[in-house]
């Protein structure tokens, strides 16, 4: 499907100059004003920013197809996890193809293998699927998972055959690129998101439905709660500062954003200017790590340029910003 690449632009002037090397992607699932098949709907879908988040442009398809998350692969391919399946664009969002058939629906996260961009994993409401041919074909890779629903999947940056999956019954690990899965830890806990620290890949974080944040410093072998000061225990997002891995931000349901400066030992609530406290996506701008973006559910996108001390609304009022990513 061929689309005009710049359909709708929201420009916000910020004092900080951002590096052109950061391309940001914002997946807007819906808007508070939206109703399925019911009325004139605001523009939702994928938004991109090539200037460090100063201005955002609607990219790709128009119309609601329930986009949850978009990620750019190392070869520049864009992958979107959507209600309609997994979409792919090889021309920077100008045209898209739904690469999946009816068997794959309600894809929640999509992760491309940085070492081999033809390999992509999709975490969906019906399990994990994998393509090894750039989306030409997909195979289900759920053997050993405890149920269907998988909120997230991440690829171990040290060993790309190692995967971790966020399920409703704990963190699961695969040591054979999705061939088999086994319980890694946090049995019985609903896992909402997973994060591997960039600078310390032995360290994994899990955000949970009711148990706050848990951390493993041994590749998932053992986990410990890291909830000191984290008064909201439903964690949808976690972002670390690439230049200081002890500086962390957590996005929670109802509690807004929490910040830790000591690697998660202590958390403080940082919501000055954040008018919506359901934070589903967080992103630290790699080229300018004082800048943090927070995607909220029904409140749109917010930005802080002082490490979370204060927030300003950016764009998409009433929007559900489900995913933020950067390449």
């Amino acid at each position, binding site marked *: *499907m*061929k689309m005009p690449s710049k359909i709708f632009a929201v420009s916000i002037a910020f004092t900080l100059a951002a590096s052109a090397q950061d391309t940001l992607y914002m997946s807007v699932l819906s808007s*508070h004003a939206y*109703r*399925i*098949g*019911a*009325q*004139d*709907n605001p523009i939702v879908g994928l938004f991109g920013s090539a200037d460090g988040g100063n201005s955002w442009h609607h990219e790709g*398809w*128009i*119309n*609601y*197809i*329930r986009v*949850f998350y978009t990620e750019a692969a190392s070869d520049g391919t864009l992958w979107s996890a959507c*209600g*309609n399946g997994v979409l792919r664009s090889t021309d920077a969002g100008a*045209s*898209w*193809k*739904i690469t999946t*058939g*009816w068997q794959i*629906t*309600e894809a*929640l996260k999509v992760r491309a293998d940085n070492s081999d961009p033809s390999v992509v994993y999709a975490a*969906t*409401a*019906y399990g994990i699927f994998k393509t090894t041919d750039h989306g030409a074909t997909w195979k289900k890779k759920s053997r050993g998972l405890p*149920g*269907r*629903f998988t909120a997230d999947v991440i690829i171990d940056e040290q060993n790309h055959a190692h995967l971790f999956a966020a399920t*409703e019954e704990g963190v699961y690990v695969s040591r054979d690129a999705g061939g088999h899965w086994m319980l890694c830890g946090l049995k019985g806990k609903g896992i*909402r998101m997973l994060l591997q620290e960039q600078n310390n890949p032995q360290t994994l974080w899990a955000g949970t*439905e009711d148990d706050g944040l848990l951390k493993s410093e041994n590749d998932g072998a053992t986990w410990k709660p890291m909830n000191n000061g984290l008064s909201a225990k*439903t964690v*949808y997002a976690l972002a670390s500062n690439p230049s200081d891995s002890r500086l962390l931000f957590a996005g929670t*349901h*109802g509690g807004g954003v929490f910040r830790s400066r000591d690697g998660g030992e202590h958390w403080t609530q940082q919501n000055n200017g954040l008018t919506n406290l*359901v934070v*589903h996506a967080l992103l630290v701008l790699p080229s300018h790590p004082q800048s943090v973006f927070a995607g909220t*559910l029904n409140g749109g996108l917010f930005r802080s340029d002082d490490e979370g001390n204060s927030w300003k609304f950016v764009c998409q009022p009433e929007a559900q910003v489900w995913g933020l990513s950067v390449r």
Partner: protein
Amino acid sequence: MIYAVLLIFPAVNAMAGTFEERKAELLQEASNERGRNIFLVAAKIATHHDERYALTMLDSLINDQQIGGMFYSYQMIATYLYLQSGLPDSLKEKIRTAYRTRTMYRGDTENHWVAYYTGLYLAAQTWHDEDGSHWFNGKSSKENFDEAKDWLNEWMRITTTIGQGEFDSPTYFIVFITPMMALQQFALDNTMKKKAEMMADYLFADFAVENLNGNYCGAHSRDYPEDIVNPLRAPNVPWAWLYFGTPKNAPWLPTLGLPRQPVFRHPTSSNESLGYAWEVVFGALSSYRLPEIIFHVATDRSVPYVDKEQKRVRNIIRFGKEMNPQVYKYTYMTDQYALGSIQGGILQPIQQHTWDVTYVSDKPGNTLFTLNPFYSGKELAMFFPEEQKFLTDEVNRYHKVYTDPNKWNSSSPYEQTFQCKNAIIVLYNITPTAHHRQVDGFFSKNLDERITLANRWILCKAGKTYIAFFPLKQYEWIEEPNDWRWRSYDVKNGVVVEVGRESEYGSFEAFRKTFSAAAIDAKDFDKTLTVRYTTHMGDTMQFTYGGARILNGHTVDFSHYKLFDSPFLHSDIGSGVLTMTYKNMTRILDFNAVAIRNGMVTK
């Protein structure tokens, strides 16, 4: 010895005139409407009435975003195909372009997917041999056609072997039947064409066996509150009128006095008097004709009967090991009323209607039922992939009443039923932490009489239907505009209901005398959660919440339920075969052989 003589009979020859008259009346009525609605446009163009306006409106509808992607998918191609000779090339080209530029959401419900894939199938068939740059999803005509065909075949297979998920919905029936009619008319592949015809028969038969004067009786997977309390304003009714000839009056006439004011306004209709039911215009335009036997199944209520069905739960994506647990449906049909139920519990999120009595009446509100108004994010998260703590507010935005303590549709994990013919025991064991801890009952203000006996039975007269309602616990009455709300706050609760007819009792006074002496055995209910009751047909029912349903000393075994089991319809689980029987007529839908076999049974 019974043997079958196979023969082919033309569909509904006997009452074709009647159908044709109603069809003409419907198209004329629709063509006079001026709502912003693709079905009204189709009626105008088909009847050559107000065509100029219709073409302008169609041009506008093609381009606007008011119709959800999945509905747009089949409605636009069906419009194109039904009206092809009446459409100028410019509009045809605009419709074609829409399938290239308009990204269509597939949706997340069964009816969404039927609409989406039917549309995709017909569109890909129409504009075949085109590459992905010509399609909104980047797939070629062949890829789209194959995917649509594959899913439609899978849906038909599942439905005819383990049951429909969005079963018996007075609202969503129309979103299943309309695409099947378009598919049976326009599919070029003979196999798909035949299967679509068979699915249309299947859906109509499923409706027909629980049709009473146009009311879609029994429990529903999904229904809107306004339709639950006023069944003759539901979207299925124009279809019943057109195909079954019931109710007698056309559905747009203000005979029921309560124009439907939908909470959820369907995008494809703006006509308040008919709700969002103008989809029936596509039925009138279709070449599909209802087989005579289904007409009889829908209209012959000379002998009461039990209809048992097995359906399936909508896909459970989390908090459950089984994706599609079974739904056990039981409906008792008479000429005056139907009493129907499913076993209770969460079988569908948001819009479940677990049990009711629906009776023949020319007044609105012709139903009686109870429920526990339940909501939870976890319930929603069983079926939707969004975050469970977010979903409640999100669903409330769509359905308005989801968290409302006064809502009239709800599944509840604290509600269970046991029905035997004209009697039902409904028990509640509501957790003290539930948001809403009451049981509510709907009693229409249009009941002819409502009296309370000294022994606690509440008796109602509704025309020739008599309803006896026994509350296990204390209650209060709350007056509302169109009903009296029966409300009971005890969390361990229940009701016993038995329904009768004037023809059985002779008079309401005789009914009163009978129930003056009727007893319920519910001693120690709070400890045992057990009720024992012997009906006036002589059946002894014993039901323990969370325990056995015992009928005349034997435990009821749901595992014996078939897909359809009634004097009219029979289908075994896994069979893919539905056998319809009416007197000496049979019609067999064999989805394995993709064949319809009509026959006459003689002795």
